[in-house]
């Protein structure tokens, strides 16, 4: 965990006071909505269909048990007893009252949580691998650099009014769990031929109306140059990014229109002027940040303790262990992913009671730490393998042991038309129906890894373009229709999916997905060939034939 210093605490508390005054002036009429809108957005407050929505940042997806309890408290006291974990390591509260928001922010500030820059045309929450610091084979903990970027970008005066929002993601593992290639800037920590640690910098990724996979702008930037190089990119974007058309304002459009070579030249020229200036990161600064992260005092434990050996006879435990327990860098420990995708449930939602109970379990079994992943699941990052059977029983009691992680019912979905003012169609009921259709665990295991991503509009908060199966809600003559894409992926081999065919009506979506999955089972080369690999090998056509032959 990162420990805030006095500067961090002062900044957050001052922000709460400032926003309290702004809300007071808004409610008295001293500020008009036009004047207030940007202020509320910069504090994560949107207006949705039924109410204000409050988006709270969970930087690089790391939470303490104390922070999770406070999120539960906010859900219970100011909202309707639950929160929604998003695809960018934020949590959203859907029913918050503007008049009570300053109190909610003050309560969150007590535990070092804020909502700064979770909206607006500035740098958003810096996201990372939810397994950061514990994943085997990681180059180093990417949260050190995430935190440096968080501090650098928070209230940055030059980048508080960018042409459009700006998102960073960082990973330090070969397998990308942070979806870095669909971010404005994606950073991959790696070692160069000389054994030095640095970043591959990717730029111009993003989904929405015009999706692009990020392109590598520089294969290696030393850590000491990270901020100056990032600043050079953002300066070029700030200068040339379009402000006349919201649909063409993201950096991905600029990179596309200039071309990556020309864009890189502009960045190099800017960087040449600033790289040896104030943004050069001394090792001492990096070490100071590093020293503020604390790590558990791991015990020396056996890889296969007796408790685990005995529990292996229980098929329900084994089903969960195989699905939800992952290797840890320390022998005798494991990373446990907690599915927030119960059968028939809204993806990513957790109740206040679940959050409180999980905070207790984190204290007992995971050194008080919880992680949030972009797949809208949670994780306990430091669980002793001997504790897995007991933990499983406790998780099962609170509905957090659904053994479907990475399977077909582990669906990413935006809030859709049930909540969102931008949406054209509902997402959650589609996800719920699909989790029911694929609720049989044996069938789901037979299908294997398959990511379904659902967005209720072209803004793509559900990352539908990079779902193995992507579902996009559109509106046609007042009716909900859904476009289906296949073959997308968000990992280190990120790719955009291809359209299967014409959009299908709401009532047929689940049938179509079943048809696609059945086609895959019939066509795959062998049981180890993943859905997304079958699509790559076969193309869209066999799936299109299956879906539309009888429609």
């Amino acid at each position, binding site marked *: 965990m990162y420990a805030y210093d006095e500067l961090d605490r002062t900044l957050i508390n001052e922000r709460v006071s400032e926003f309290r005054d702004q809300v007071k002036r808004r409610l008295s009429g001293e500020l008009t909505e036009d004047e207030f809108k940007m202020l509320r957005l910069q504090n994560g407050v949107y207006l949705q269909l*039924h*109410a204000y929505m409050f988006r709270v940042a969970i930087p690089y997806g790391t939470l303490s048990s104390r922070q999770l309890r406070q999120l539960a408290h906010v859900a219970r006291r100011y909202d309707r007893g639950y929160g929604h974990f998003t695809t960018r390591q934020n949590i959203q509260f859907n029913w918050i009252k*503007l008049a009570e928001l300053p109190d909610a922010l003050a309560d969150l500030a007590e535990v070092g949580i804020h909502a700064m820059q979770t909206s607006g045309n500035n740098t958003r929450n810096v996201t990372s691998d939810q397994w950061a610091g514990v994943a085997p084979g990681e180059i180093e903990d990417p949260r050190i650099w995430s935190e440096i970027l968080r501090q650098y970008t928070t209230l940055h005066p030059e980048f508080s009014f960018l042409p459009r929002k700006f998102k960073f993601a960082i990973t330090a593992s070969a397998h990308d769990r942070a979806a870095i290639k669909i971010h404005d800037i994606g950073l991959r920590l790696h070692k160069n031929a000389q054994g030095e640690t640095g970043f591959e910098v990717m730029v111009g990724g993003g989904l929405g109306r015009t999706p692009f996979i990020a392109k590598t702008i520089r294969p290696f930037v030393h850590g000491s140059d990270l901020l100056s190089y990032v600043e050079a990119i953002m300066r070029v974007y700030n200068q040339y990014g379009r402000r006349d058309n919201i649909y063409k304002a993201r950096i991905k459009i600029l990179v596309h229109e200039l071309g990556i070579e020309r864009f890189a030249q502009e960045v190099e020229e800017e960087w040449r002027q600033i790289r040896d200036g104030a943004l050069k990161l001394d090792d001492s600064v990096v070490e100071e940040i590093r020293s503020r992260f604390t790590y558990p005092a791991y015990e020396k434990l056996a890889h296969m303790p007796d408790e685990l050996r005995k529990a292996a006879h229980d098929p329900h435990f084994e089903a969960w262990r195989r699905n939800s327990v992952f290797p840890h860098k320390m022998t005798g420990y494991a990373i446990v992913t907690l599915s927030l995708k119960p059968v028939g449930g809204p993806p990513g939602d957790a109740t206040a009671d679940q959050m409180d109970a999980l905070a207790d379990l984190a204290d007992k079994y995971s050194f008080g730490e919880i992680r949030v992943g972009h797949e809208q699941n949670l994780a306990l990052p430091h669980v002793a393998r001997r504790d897995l059977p007991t933990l499983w029983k406790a998780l099962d009691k609170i509905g957090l042991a659904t053994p479907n992680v990475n399977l077909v019912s582990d669906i990413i979905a935006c809030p859709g038309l049930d909540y969102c003012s931008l949406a054209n169609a509902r997402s959650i009921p589609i996800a719920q129906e699909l989790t029911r259709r694929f609720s049989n665990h044996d069938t789901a295991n037979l299908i294997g890894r398959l990511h379904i991503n659902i967005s209720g509009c072209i803004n793509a908060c559900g990352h539908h373009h990079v779902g193995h199966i992507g579902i996009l809600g559109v509106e046609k003559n007042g009716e909900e229709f859904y476009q289906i894409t296949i073959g997308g992926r968000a990992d280190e081999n990120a790719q955009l999916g291809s359209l299967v065919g014409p959009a299908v009506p709401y009532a047929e979506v689940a049938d179509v997905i079943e048809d696609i999955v059945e086609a895959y089972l019939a066509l795959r080369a062998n049981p180890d060939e993943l859905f997304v690999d079958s699509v790559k090998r076969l193309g869209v056509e066999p799936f299109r034939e299956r879906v539309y032959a009888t429609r």
Partner: protein
Amino acid sequence: MTSPLEQKKIKITGPSVVTANRTWDGIVVYRTPEQGWSAKLADAAIVRTSDDARVLLAESVADDVGAIGAYIAPVEVRDGGAIKPGNLREQIRSAGVTIGLPVQA
């Protein structure tokens, strides 16, 4: 500067209401004939011409301490006078989410 109301052509093709979200808590509200706001669609002022819609929207937008994001929404007026939302979005805003909430009220 021309206001957004004047810039935007307002044309309605059937009975309509003005809806918004109440400023202090964000709940869905409808403009009433008494120039106030109500959480009940049944209380909404119904307009049937574009000119009337423009007038109703203008007075609604002017009251941004009361409610924000005002816009014109279509409705159906059934036999007997019952008012129903005119599309799915407005139906969801009026009746609430179409799913069960994780925590029942």
